[in-house]
């Protein structure tokens, strides 16, 4: 296998490098890629979409159809992880651990079964021994709202600075994963339940496809945001900016929900009881 691998890699690499002899030099402003299609995106983005960030306008407007399917890809990955790993019957364990919150005393209860009830002063522990770290828990609890605020800023300000739906959605998802890592998965699941996550992920992509379908119903082509100027009080160029914002929100919601679903299913091997 090794020899086959080396042969294939060397042959493919040699062929690819041979082809690069004809490539334009790095950074050439007169290369075909810089001259043919993209100048219009840069020159016309303000007058056609009123969004200064050319990447966002190309992503969500000129080539918005690709982005809709990209969101569908991440949704499909989340659904796949759920479908492959989720086991609705709980994990059988022969002993459970509890920790007294105030003193740090730990108890081991030897009883077969899935999950013992939550007691008032004792919290259930993961079967993998982790020390109770007050600094980590408190710090993360303080940080998470600010992280989420920053994520919302990234989503909303994607028109004027690098950012947008995907980036903001991932940061939102990361904030909930931080909660799951710093405390435990049960608290993260208490904050936002599995069913809510599933509905969010569908709702996010459906907002995107729904905006496109709305433009279809209003008489124009699929995903032509200028049609939105019929129902919102903006001119067609402003309607494009509005349409871009709507789809970015949809993308952000979908990506957040999917990231959290993938983390929960992978880290707990499908049981959704305890994680890392």
């Amino acid at each position, binding site marked *: 296998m090794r020899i086959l691998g080396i042969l294939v890699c060397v042959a493919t690499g040699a*062929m*690819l490098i*041979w*082809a*690069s*002899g*004809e*490539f*334009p030099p790095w950074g050439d402003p007169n*290369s*075909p*890629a*810089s*001259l*043919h*299609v*993209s100048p*219009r*995106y840069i020159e016309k983005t303000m007058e056609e979409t009123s969004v200064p960030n050319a990447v966002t306008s190309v992503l969500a*407007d*000129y*080539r*918005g*159809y*690709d982005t809709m*399917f*990209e969101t*569908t*890809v991440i949704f*499909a*990955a989340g*659904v*796949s992880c*759920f*479908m*492959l790993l*989720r086991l*609705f019957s709980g994990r059988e364990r022969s002993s459970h651990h509890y920790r007294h919150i105030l003193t740090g005393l730990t108890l081991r209860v030897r009883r077969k079964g899935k999950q013992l009830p939550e007691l008032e002063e004792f919290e259930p522990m993961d079967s993998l021994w982790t020390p109770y770290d007050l600094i980590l828990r408190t710090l993360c609890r303080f940080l998470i709202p600010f992280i989420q605020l920053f994520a919302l800023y990234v989503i909303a300000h994607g028109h004027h600075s690098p950012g947008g739906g995907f980036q903001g959605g991932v940061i939102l998802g990361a904030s909930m994963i931080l909660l799951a890592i710093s405390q435990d998965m049960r608290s993260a699941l208490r904050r936002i339940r599995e*069913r809510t996550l*599933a*509905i969010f992920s*569908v709702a996010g*992509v*459906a907002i995107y*496809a729904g905006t*496109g*379908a709305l433009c*279809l119903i209003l008489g*124009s*082509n*699929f*995903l*032509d*945001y*200028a049609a939105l100027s019929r129902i919102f009080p903006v001119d067609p160029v402003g309607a494009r900016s509005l349409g871009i914002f709507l789809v970015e929100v949809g993308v952000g919601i979908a990506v957040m929900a999917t990231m959290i679903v993938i983390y929960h299913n992978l880290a707990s091997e499908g049981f959704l009881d305890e994680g890392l």
Partner: protein
Amino acid sequence: MTSHLPALVVTVPLLTAFAAFAAGWLRPKLCFPVGLTGLGITAISSIWLLAEVLEAGTVTYELGRWPAPWGIVYVVDRLNGVVLAAISLCAFIQWISSRASVKSQFSDRIGAFYGLELLFVTGVMGITVTGDAFNLYVLLEIASITAYALIAMGGGRAPLSSLNYVFMGTIGACFYLLGVGYLYIMTGSLNMADLASILQGMRSSQAILVAFVIIIVGVWLKMGFFPLHGWLPNAYTHAPWPATTLIAPLMTKVMAYVMMRLVLFLFGPEYSFGVLGLKDVVVWWASLAVVAGSVIALSQKDLKRMITCIILIEIAYMVGGTFLGNRSGTTGAIFHLVNDVFMTLCVFLAVSSLAFRQRELDMDTMEGLFSEMPFTMGALVTGALSIVGVPPTCGFFSKWLLLKGALEAGHYEFMVALILSSLVCLVLFFRVFEAAYFGHGERSHGHHRMREAPLGMVVPLLVVAIGIVALGLMSGEVISSIIEPALPRGVL
């Protein structure tokens, strides 16, 4: 509404997928009807679209109202239209037929399973209808990721086979992406029609040559063309039956369509057939692939694995037919693509009905099946006759065209491979029918009551079997009005 048909054909399955997934969490009983309605609307839209293309010529649709090459455009011509109609009909029939199977195996995650199946259908429909090279990559990945997940639900060895499919499939898709990158860096465009016109003037460029080679290798990896087929037998055999009956007829055939679209329209017949004398090499290689596929299929004991290996032979026919380079060969390859969707669907649905009742598909336990399940076996016989190439089923006419094309091009080795593989398929199916009719076991002397599969499985199966014969009887009109005019002018 009719002017929006190209967008509807992809958007309706997409929205239906979301509805089915949401229904799985809220009201699981609604998943099946929702999908049925969505796929029905899709099938009607694609047939209507084909009718429009036949009447008015190529249909173009600009998404977001941005003209090509700045926006993404959908271009539907005759080649597209007929493949779209075939795919959507196949998906609709398979949806009805697999209901009992899905309910018995995946009832606790039925929303997710149905949602992924509908997303797979969205992916393959989108691959067929798009006119933009990068959009094709995204839709290809939708179809692939959902296929990986659906195949891995089989239990036992299925996750490992699916992981091998993940590795090889991702490498194939990334090779395609790399090729598109090479094309972009040399031309600056991603739109297929725009690329075709720019590439006319770049025939002797080495970067374009490498882009061509790497794109075709990537597509062959995803198609299961020998020797890049390692993932196919394991992945399709270990997958659960509902997933196999959906993915096996569609995935590899759509990749064959992609190859035809790139070879005939993007790079053009003069370039693809003339560069490096690749034409003859590929046809020789395809003949080898046909023989190898026949040998692999002959050595299988399990029925499901055997019919999976027959796909290898069919794919090799399509590659060889396309690269023969003349009208008969290319027409034969395109008609074979449409035929193979239905032939594969028929054979797989029949064997899945057998598996639903029998649970074990070894040659030893199969006897008496003709009297126990006459309709299923009748449909299996029809599908088998079509694969072998017996008139009046459609398989005969496409093989006839391929033979004619090979004769005209002087590729006698391809003719020999075609005839040899037809004989091998005959032997394969004869073994199955002999085991089912005469039997080897002790219970061959009893009288077998009829124990057919449920009505929901038998009726779609019979519809497909009748369709195969009908397609064969109408093959003259289909070829002359749809397929012949679809070929570009450069094919002689």
